[in-house]
C-alpha cells in the first residue's frame, strides 16, 4: 500500500466534501428551516471524520467529530440554525479547509483548532443536557437456574467477557447473545440486554442457556463471535446469591470465593511465566516440523498456556480502590498542615489492575497527590487574589485505554513555574544557557533528574531531594510512561500509562547486528519498511513520512552504539506510540512477537536510560526491553 496515494485521495476528496459544505451552508442561510442542507452537512462531516481518522489526522478528526455532533443537535431541533450558527459552521468548515491544505503540504502534525473547537463545544454544551449517570449495574440477578422446560435440556450458566480492547463492547455482547440463541433458549441475561449500550457496561455478562450442546461446543461457538476474551460455562459461571440491600454501586461481584494466600498466586504467576518461556521454545522447535505431531501438540499447549495465563492474571486483578482508599486522608491531613483547602475527587476507582502492579503504583500516585497539594494548590488567600475558589480541586482518575491502564492526577493550582525551573536547571548546568523556554516534555525531563527539587522552602514532603525522579523511575521500571501538561495559573496534569499486568506482556523482538532487543507491543502502533521513498529530512534530522505524517526516526544502532558494519540495505521500522507522540525506530530486522517475562533489572551506572527491563528469550539468551516512552 502506498501511504502517499491515500494522503492524495484524502486531500482531493476532503476538498470536495468541504466545497459541498460551503454550498449547503449558503442554502441553510437562505432557508434556516430546511432539513436537507443539515443532513447533507452532517453526512459530509461524518465522511470527512472517518477518512481523517483512518489517516490518523487527530486534529481534523476531532473538529469534524464535534461539528458533526453539533449538526446532529441541529437535526434534532435542539439548536436553531440562526445566522450565528451558520457563521460558526462556516468557520469550522474554513478551519477544516485550512487543515486539508496543511495535509496537502505535509504539515499536518502541528495542526490545532482549539479556538473553533472551544466555541462549538460552548454551543453544543448549552443545548445538550449533561450525560445521565449510567444506571447501576444489575448485580442481583437470577442466581438460581430457571426451571427446566418439560423434555427440554437443563439450563446452564454462561459467563462471557468481551476483550478489553474491543471497540463497542456492548454491540459485541449483543452479537454473542445472538449467537447463543442459535444454540438454545437464553434467559436471565444480566446485566439486562438494554443496559449493554450504556457507558457503564464493562463487557462482562451472564445468562442461562438451555442447550443440548456440550459445554465445549458452547464455548467454541460463542468465542467464534470474535473479540471475546473468555467464555465460562457451568458452575463457575453461576453468581452467588447477592444479599438484598447490598449496594450495586460498590461494584461488588460476589462469586464463589475462597481465600488464597497472595504468595501462592505470586508463585503460580512465576511458574506460568516460566511455562511461557518453555512454550515459546517448544513452538520454535515445532516450527521446524510444520505438519508433525509435535506441531499439533505445540498448538494445543499454546492454547492451554494462554488460558492458564489469562486465568492467573484474572485471579490477581484487584480494584484500584483498595489502594486509592488511603489517599483522601493523606491529602486532607497534608492540606490541613499546610493551611490549604483541598477537595480530592477520585474517579474510576473500580477498574482492576494486576495485584503486583497495584502495590507498585500506590507510592508514585501518593507522591503526585502530595506534590499537587504542596506545590500545585495555592493558599486560600493567593487563590482568592487570583480570582479562583478558595478550595483547590485535585482529581485522581483511573481509566482503561486499550490494553493499558491510565492514571491522571490533575490539580487546578498555580501550574509549574517554567521560568523558575529553567533558571534552576541552568544554574545546575542541566540545561544550556541558550535555552529560553522549557516545553512540557523538557520540563518533565528536567524535573525527572535525580535530586532536582524545586520547593522554594523546605516542607515535610519536599525539599529532601525526593521528587518527580522517583515517580518517573518507578513508572518506567514497570514498563509505563509519564506525561506532564502544565499551564501557568490553571493547573498541572500528570498522566501515567501502565501495562495491565506486570509480569508478562507481548513484545516485538527486533535485531540490530547480532543483538536482540524487545519492545512492548502496547507501544507498537505498526511496522513499516524504511526506504528512501518514505524518507525525509526534518530540520536536518532523518524522518519518516507515514500516510502524510512526518515522524522523527531513531536508529537503534545509534542508541545502543552498535558498530557501523554490515548495515542491511532494506531496514524495517517500528512505529512507537506513546500518548499522542509517535516515533519511528529503525532496526535491522524484525523477529516476530513473543510473550515475554519481565525480569527485575538494575541498570548499571552509565547505561543509557532507554531500557525498562530485561527478559530471557526462548533460546535462553537475555535481551533488554526498550523503554518506548524515553525513545518517543
Amino acid at each position, binding site marked *: *500500500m502506498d501511504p502517499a*496515494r*491515500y494522503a492524495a*485521495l*484524502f486531500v482531493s*476528496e476532503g476538498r470536495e466534501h468541504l466545497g459541498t459544505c460551503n454550498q449547503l451552508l449558503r442554502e441553510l442561510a437562505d432557508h434556516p428551516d430546511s432539513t436537507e442542507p443539515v443532513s*447533507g452537512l*452532517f*453526512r459530509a462531516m*461524518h*465522511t470527512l*471524520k*472517518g*477518512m481523517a*481518522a*483512518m489517516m*490518523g489526522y487527530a486534529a481534523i478528526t476531532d473538529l469534524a*467529530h464535534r461539528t458533526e*455532533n453539533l449538526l446532529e443537535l441541529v437535526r434534532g431541533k435542539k439548536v436553531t440554525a440562526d445566522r450565528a450558527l451558520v457563521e460558526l459552521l462556516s468557520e469550522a468548515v474554513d478551519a477544516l479547509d485550512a487543515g486539508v491544505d496543511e495535509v496537502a503540504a505535509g504539515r499536518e502534525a502541528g495542526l490545532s483548532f482549539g479556538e473553533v473547537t472551544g466555541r462549538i463545544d460552548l454551543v453544543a454544551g448549552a443545548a445538550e443536557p449533561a450525560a445521565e449517570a449510567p444506571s447501576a449495574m444489575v448485580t442481583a440477578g437470577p442466581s438460581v437456574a430457571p426451571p427446566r422446560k418439560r423434555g427440554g435440556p437443563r439450563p446452564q450458566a454462561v459467563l462471557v467477557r468481551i476483550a478489553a480492547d474491543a*471497540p*463497542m463492547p*456492548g*454491540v459485541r455482547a*449483543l*452479537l454473542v447473545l*445472538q449467537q447463543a440463541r442459535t444454540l438454545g433458549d437464553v434467559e436471565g441475561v444480566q446485566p439486562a440486554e438494554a443496559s449493554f*449500550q450504556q457507558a457503564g457496561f464493562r463487557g462482562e455478562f451472564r445468562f442461562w442457556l438451555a442447550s443440548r450442546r456440550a459445554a465445549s461446543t458452547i464455548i467454541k461457538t460463542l468465542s*467464534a*463471535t*470474535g473479540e471475546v476474551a473468555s467464555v465460562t460455562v457451568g458452575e463457575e459461571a453461576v453468581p452467588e446469591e447477592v444479599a438484598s440491600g447490598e449496594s450495586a454501586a460498590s461494584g461488588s461481584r460476589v462469586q464463589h470465593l475462597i481465600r488464597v494466600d497472595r504468595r501462592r498466586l505470586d508463585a503460580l504467576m512465576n511458574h506460568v511465566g516460566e511455562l511461557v518461556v518453555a512454550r515459546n521454545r517448544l513452538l520454535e522447535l515445532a516450527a521446524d516440523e510444520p505438519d508433525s505431531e509435535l506441531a499439533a501438540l505445540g498448538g494445543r499447549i499454546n492454547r492451554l498456556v494462554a488460558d492458564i495465563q489469562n486465568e492467573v492474571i484474572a485471579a490477581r486483578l484487584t480494584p484500584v480502590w483498595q489502594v486509592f482508599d488511603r489517599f483522601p486522608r493523606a491529602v486532607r491531613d497534608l492540606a490541613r498542615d499546610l493551611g490549604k483547602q483541598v477537595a480530592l475527587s477520585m474517579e474510576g476507582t473500580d477498574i482492576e489492575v494486576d495485584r503486583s502492579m497495584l502495590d507498585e503504583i500506590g507510592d508514585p500516585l501518593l507522591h503526585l497527590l502530595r506534590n499537587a497539594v504542596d506545590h500545585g494548590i495555592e493558599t486560600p488567600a493567593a487563590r482568592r487574589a487570583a480570582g479562583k475558589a478558595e478550595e483547590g480541586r485535585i482529581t485522581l482518575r483511573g481509566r482503561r485505554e486499550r490494553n493499558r491502564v491510565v492514571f491522571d492526577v490533575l490539580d487546578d493550582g498555580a501550574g509549574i513555574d517554567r521560568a523558575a525551573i529553567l533558571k534552576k536547571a541552568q544554574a545546575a548546568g542541566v540545561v544550556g544557557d541558550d535555552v529560553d523556554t522549557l516545553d512540557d516534555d523538557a520540563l518533565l525531563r528536567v524535573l525527572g533528574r535525580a535530586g532536582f527539587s524545586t520547593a522554594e522552602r523546605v516542607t515535610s514532603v519536599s525539599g529532601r531531594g525526593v521528587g518527580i525522579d522517583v515517580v518517573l523511575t518507578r513508572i518506567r521500571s514497570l514498563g509505563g510512561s509519564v506525561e506532564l501538561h502544565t499551564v501557568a495559573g490553571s493547573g498541572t496534569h500528570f498522566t501515567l500509562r501502565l501495562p495491565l499486568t506486570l509480569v508478562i506482556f507481548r513484545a516485538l523482538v527486533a535485531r540490530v547486528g547480532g543483538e536482540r532487543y524487545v519492545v512492548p507491543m502496547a507501544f507498537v502502533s*505498526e511496522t513499516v519498511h524504511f526506504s528512501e521513498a518514505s524518507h525525509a529530512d526534518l530540520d536536518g534530522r532523518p524522518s519518516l513520512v507515514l500516510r502524510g505524517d512526518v515522524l522523527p526516526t531513531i536508529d537503534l544502532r545509534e542508541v545502543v552504539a552498535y558498530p557501523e558494519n554490515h548495515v542491511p540495505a532494506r531496514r524495517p521500522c517500528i512505529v512507537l506510540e506513546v500518548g499522542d507522540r509517535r516515533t519511528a525506530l529503525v532496526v535491522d530486522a524484525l523477529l516476530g512477537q513473543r510473550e515475554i517475562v519481565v525480569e527485575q533489572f538494575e541498570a548499571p551506572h552509565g547505561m543509557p536510560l532507554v531500557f525498562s527491563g530485561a527478559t530471557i528469550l526462548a533460546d535462553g539468551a537475555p535481551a533488554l526491553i526498550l523503554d518506548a516512552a524515553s525513545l518517543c
Partner: protein
Amino acid sequence: MSHTVLVCDDAIFMRTMIGDILSQAGFEVVGEAETGVQAVEKYGQLKPDLVTMDIVMPDMGGIDAVREICKSDPDAKILMCSAMGQQALVVEAIQAGAKDFVVKPFQPSRVLEAVQRVLG
C-alpha cells in the same frame, strides 16, 4: 476460488482503502456502491459473497440497504463499517441482519478477522 466482495461507502477514499485491504488478502472486489440504493441494486446483480457497508450514505443509508438486501437474501453476509460514536446505529444494523462490524479507524488485520468471521 477467491471470495467476491461488494464495497459500499460514499467516500472514494474509504472504498479504495477497504478495497486494497481485501484484494491484498486475496479477495476479489467485484463492485463498489456509493449510495444505499446502488448497494441494493449491485447486490442483486453481482450476488457477492461479502458486502462491506458504510452506515451514513446519501440516497438510502446503510441500515436500510442492509434491510433491503436481507429481505431478498436472508443469508447475505454483510460487514458494517462504522465510525466512533455510532453504537446505536450499529445495533440497528445488526438487528436488520448485518453479521459483524468494524469501527473506523481500523487496522487491516481487524477488518480481515471480521471478514473471516462473517464468511464463517
